């Protein structure tokens, strides 16, 4: 097996709440190979964004990382001080946050926002080098060079999202975490942005973690998918396996909730509501919504186990 670029081991993240601890991420482990595209899918509240942020140690109080380790290549992130962590963000692991197209500074030109990021990471460039770098970055995300001198409000949603990807990749990171990067975009623009991300990722040989809930997008983009439910990974498998042979009933429900373009009247929701993390049902957290649940599911929490090449946390798999 090749050297893993990112390893997450037994990560637990909780939020303190007056009515008790909210376990947002519960004992999650996975590892990424260089250049791999890994997906994290689940409903809102499943802990996928919290997981993405806690990899970068960006969880703020009342949230805290309770246990577990994150390794970037040979570095254990918990060993870094705040300054070291700041240096690692963006240059080694970059984040394209949720709704990032609205996170651009409205009063700065795009080029300023890129050079700020470079300067913050100690890159001292001459004017000419800076211009050169910005031109290359914008070209890589398919934006004309004129965008450098524009303000965010002059750009469309798709262009803003590309600008965010340009900023995220300006230091050639080895891991890119993209949290629902296209959730506010139209399908046609979504495809263009994802194609851009795929191209850049191949260029940088970077691993990508794509966080989202659209199983169609996952099927078309990632190599391997982790499905999260109530803070836990319930299935991890190569995407072709997930699409053809989903093993966890929740994974099957997620795929079935995708509206079909082949057959009308096949609209299926997932019955019941996503669980309240503060007050999880006993046993398998999915059992109240699962059509196959048995007595064992109600009492015994299933562990993630290996079943020919896939990992599944279900007693029935």
């Amino acid at each position, binding site marked *: 097996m090749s050297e893993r670029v990112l390893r997450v081991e037994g990560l637990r993240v909780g939020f303190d709440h007056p009515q008790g601890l909210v376990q947002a991420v519960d004992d999650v482990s996975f590892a990424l190979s260089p250049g791999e595209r890994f997906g994290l899918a689940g409903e809102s509240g499943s802990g996928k964004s919290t997981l993405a942020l806690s990899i970068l140690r960006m969880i703020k109080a009342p949230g805290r990382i309770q246990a577990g380790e994150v390794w970037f290549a040979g570095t254990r992130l918990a060993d870094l001080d705040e300054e070291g962590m700041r240096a690692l963000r963006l240059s080694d692991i970059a984040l394209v946050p949720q709704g990032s197209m609205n996170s651009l500074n409205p009063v700065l030109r795009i080029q300023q926002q890129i050079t700020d990021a470079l300067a913050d990471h100690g890159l001292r460039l001459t004017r000419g080098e800076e211009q050169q770098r910005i031109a290359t970055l914008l070209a890589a995300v*398919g934006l004309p060079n004129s965008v450098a001198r524009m303000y965010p409000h002059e750009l469309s*949603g798709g262009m803003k999202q590309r600008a965010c990807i340009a900023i995220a990749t300006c230091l050639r990171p080895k891991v890119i975490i993209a949290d629902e990067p296209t959730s506010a975009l139209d*399908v*046609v623009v979504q495809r263009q942005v994802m194609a851009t991300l795929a191209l850049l990722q191949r260029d940088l040989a970077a691993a990508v973690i794509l966080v989202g809930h*659209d199983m169609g997008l996952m099927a*078309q983009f990632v190599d391997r998918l982790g499905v999260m439910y109530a803070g836990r990974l319930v299935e991890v498998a190569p995407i072709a396996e997930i699409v053809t042979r989903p093993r966890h009933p929740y994974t099957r429900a997620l*795929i079935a*909730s995708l509206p079909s*373009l082949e057959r009308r009247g096949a609209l299926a929701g997932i019955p019941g509501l996503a669980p309240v993390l503060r007050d999880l049902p006993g046993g398998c957290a999915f059992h109240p919504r699962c059509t196959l649940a048995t007595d064992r599911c109600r009492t015994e929490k299933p562990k993630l186990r290996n079943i020919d090449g896939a990992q599944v946390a279900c007693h029935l798999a």
Partner: protein
Amino acid sequence: MAPLIEAVDVSKRFAGGLGRESTLALAGLSLAIHAEKPSIIAVVGESGSGKTTLAHLLLGLAEPTGGEVRYRGSDLRKLKRDERLAFRRDVQAVFQDPYGVYNPFYRVDHVLATPVRRFRLAASRAQARELIGETLRAVGLRPEEILGRFPHQLSGGQRQRVMVARALLLKPKLIVADEPVSMVDASLRATILSSLRKLTDEHGISILYITHDLATAYQVSDTILVLYRAHVAEAGAVERVVTAPQHPYTQLLISAIPRAHVARDWLVQKDEAGRAPPAVIAAQGCCFADRCPLVTPVCLGASPALYRTEPRRAVACVQFRHHPALPAGDLGKVLAT
């Protein structure tokens, strides 16, 4: 009988301020909704295609700059007092954001009790409670879990269904639903859409379903209109339009939906354009010409008419010019047949 709501060749142009050019938001759209034939009409398009403008025009929240919106045969702008009240009751709205439509200081009961009072739907308090409870159950909610709560105590899906219940209280003939599920989770989307479908099938309420999501439109609607930059690109029976799209834009939209297939054909498809659409629509010619893979010199000359390619279908593309062109204002009649 005059249709419940009819848009006849309506256009909306927003004036540009301070030397800016005006924006054409909707160009000559026609549509008819008949009270006696309840159905779901989907309006699909990307952001900026004019779909919300259409909703505002039909709800009387904006006035057309060309053409007319009619309620039971009379111009919306010239309704008499009692007609206006009837219109306000017959045509209800459900908006996109189930967070923004509530006043956080009031319990959710408030949005349900107000229309009951305003339209005198109940003779007593007990009757009002009864009516509200019944309506909540009709959209799949349990009144005891909803009433007495504040908006922030409900999930997005619950809040959106309370909005559907509010519309339903008035026993309307038409609900204009502007992106009702774009802000709720995929798993809940199906539930809300099925409750909308039930309103049509069981309560005889027509729905104008405005969305950017062609796949859900295919699942719930009977008729579909595809808008592109203020113009109708294609319209017709949803089954035909989605399974055999004729307009190049409809074809592009359908191919751009990522499918949960093993075949990874989505990213590798040759895309018409990394090109972003220009901000200003060309004064003449087809509005899709700059992105169209089949563009010909004819396309640049004049805006294409709507050609009636099938009894219940119209396509705005010169490829189909051997079919009869629809006179302005006739689209509503074609779709209603």
